[in-house]
């Protein structure tokens, strides 16, 4: 019964997403695209945080790298989008492997600070290396040509791009879901809960952590590759620590204990940002207050709190 309810809910959400350009004002196509991309970014972060228990504050390094990879390829070689995205995925994976190898040796606070450091280092490189990355001005003025695989679409049309992003995010999300719910994913969760016990079972926790970190980097790179054509620019800010903080916030908002939590968090975050910034410039203040309340009282996030409430009502306890 529960699985049927979950499946139906997912189908409903998918249906709404497909129908979005037709049922909402034009502006929401951009909102929707942004939510999907950020949701993938946050979900990749959650593989590291929610499943493996490592708080990384430098996840935007991979996101930014993916964005630059796609932007440079589109600007210089005009490759089809799918090819660029593949390169972004690989770039994110390779960078995450390099950084992860150095970081997973350390625990908790040190890990957080070191990932922050490396994230800011990527930002610094993007900012300084004017000849390659365009410096603080970034890479701009490129357009998206073809999709690849012989599919002919006007990717310049925001609605068309939205559907492409939707398709790719659904596929990537499904892949990520399979990873999170495989035996590999179970080991990761065990590592989060009790690293020593897992080590006593004979498993090398460092290898598992590195693998999780690397895979997450790849999906973050993919998300970055989708972001560059959406924004029409790849700029150093995409690798800044404030960008790394967004998936963290989204995951906490949505709920780190569930696969769809980050997606929900991304939707809440982007919608809140759009609505609140129409009223006031002090959006960060509200964000801070909401985050504080979530951390103190609703640590499980919106999704977590809602599911617990539903479960309680169903089992009859007050």
């Amino acid at each position, binding site marked *: 019964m529960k699985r049927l309810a979950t499946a139906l809910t997912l189908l409903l959400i998918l249906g709404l997403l497909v129908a979005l350009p037709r049922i909402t*004002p*034009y*502006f929401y196509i*951009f909102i929707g695209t942004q939510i999907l991309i950020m949701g993938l970014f946050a979900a990749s972060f959650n593989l590291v945080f929610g499943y493996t228990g490592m708080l990384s504050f430098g996840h935007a390094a991979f996101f930014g790298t993916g964005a630059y990879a796609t932007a440079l390829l589109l600007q210089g070689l005009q490759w089809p989008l799918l090819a660029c995205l593949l390169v972004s995925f690989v770039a994110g994976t390779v960078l995450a492997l390099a950084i992860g190898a150095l970081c997973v040796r350390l625990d908790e606070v040190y890990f957080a600070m070191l990932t922050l450091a490396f994230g800011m280092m990527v930002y610094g490189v993007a*900012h*300084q290396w*004017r000849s390659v990355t365009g*410096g*603080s*001005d*970034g890479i*701009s*003025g490129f*357009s998206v040509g073809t999709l690849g695989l012989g599919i002919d679409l006007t990717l*310049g049309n925001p609605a068309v791009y939205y559907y492409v992003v939707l398709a790719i995010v659904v596929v990537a999300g499904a892949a990520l879901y399979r990873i999170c719910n495989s035996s590999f994913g179970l080991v990761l969760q065990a590592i989060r809960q009790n690293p020593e016990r897992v080590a006593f079972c004979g498993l090398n926790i460092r290898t598992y952590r590195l693998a999780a970190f690397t895979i997450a980097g790849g999906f973050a790179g993919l998300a970055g590759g989708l972001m560059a054509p959406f*924004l*029409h*620019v790849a*700029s150093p*800010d*995409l690798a800044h620590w404030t960008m790394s903080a967004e998936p963290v916030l989204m995951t906490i908002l949505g709920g780190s204990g569930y696969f769809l939590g980050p997606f929900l968090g991304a939707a809440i975050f982007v919608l809140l940002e*759009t609505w609140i910034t*129409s009223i006031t*410039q002090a959006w960060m203040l509200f964000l801070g207050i909401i985050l504080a309340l979530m951390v103190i009282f609703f640590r499980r996030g919106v999704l977590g709190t809602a599911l617990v409430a539903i479960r309680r009502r169903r089992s009859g306890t007050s």
Partner: protein
Amino acid sequence: MTSFSWKTALGTALAGAALVASSPALAEQPIKIGGIYLMSGSAATYGEFAKQGATLAIDEVNADGGVLGRQLELKLEDGQGKVAVAIQAARKLVYQDKVDLLMGIDSSGVAEGLVPVVPELGKPFMITHAATPAATGRLCNKYTFRDGTYVAQQMAGAAAVAADTDAAKWTTIGPDYAFGHQTWEYFSKYLKERNPDVQIMDDAAAFPKFGAEDFTPFISSVMAAKPDGVMISLWGGDLVNFVRQASKLGFFEQGFTNIYAVGAATEVLTALGEQMPEGQWLATRYWYDAWDTPMNKKFVADYKAAWGHPPSYNAEQAYMAIYAFKAAIEKAGSVDADKVIAALKGLTIPAPFGDMHFRAGDNQALIGPTIGLSGPMHESDGIRTLVQIRNFDGADVTPPVDPDCKM
């Protein structure tokens, strides 16, 4: 399942009717102008002053009956100096807030990112500050106009002033992004053309990060290189910091000839007050005290009455953007984007400094910089006066249309 309620249905119907009845007739809806400026960070005063200039113009126009009988309305977004933010803001202004016209952009880097996106947005866009040549050059498009000077015009004037001094060896301190590098590139080129004997010290050029707090290492390195003249393209909070820190290090006692690309910005001069030394060549697109025309006198007086301080160039250019839009809409007889840009093309309108003409080939206004030497403090305005003012004619200093500009 709640049963169908007649009360609810009636209430909804009445509410709907009230809503329809209360929405104004189309002709009375305001013409909306979306502005994207730096409203935060170390250069936030520029956005503030642009807002003041635009608001003054809008209030004047509205008091005069509006444009085509419709009032003007301004909606501002903070670009934060970031391209991605500016593009999102532009999308929001056009698709959600349904603005008819766009204006803005302080940062050259942001402009280079936003200008290619403007045709997709399909609204007329007036650049009122960003000075990158690309915006009316290789990135030009029929929707984008600029009513302020850009780097080539500014540096033509600066090079003319530099060539008249004794300084033979020149270097620069500028922010490490498009504007800083382009300014140095054009300045060196024009100066060399005027005076082939000058030495351009590229190795000594210092480019601190935009928004850096500590300029001391860069100041020291420039002083150690012992140039005769320094071209300083820092602006905003950077320029304020630079001047204060440079004073402490004795930079202004080395006998350098200093030319500031956009130094005569009232935003900066107000923050510095007496700390801006005398004898510095300060350049700007518009200096409130340099023009004796009736229109300028009125503009400066009205601006001071409204905001309590003299208008900066950023304010004046935002002010003129409104009037340019007004003239174009009236000429076109409509707010339709394609008709407005057709009307703006090649348009000439009166401005505080004379006539402002948008060149048809690239939509760039032909304006020249004003450069003067910082002098004694103004008796009432709290900032340095400019003496030995040189106003350059736009037609003289503007290079021909960039061959890369294809509209």
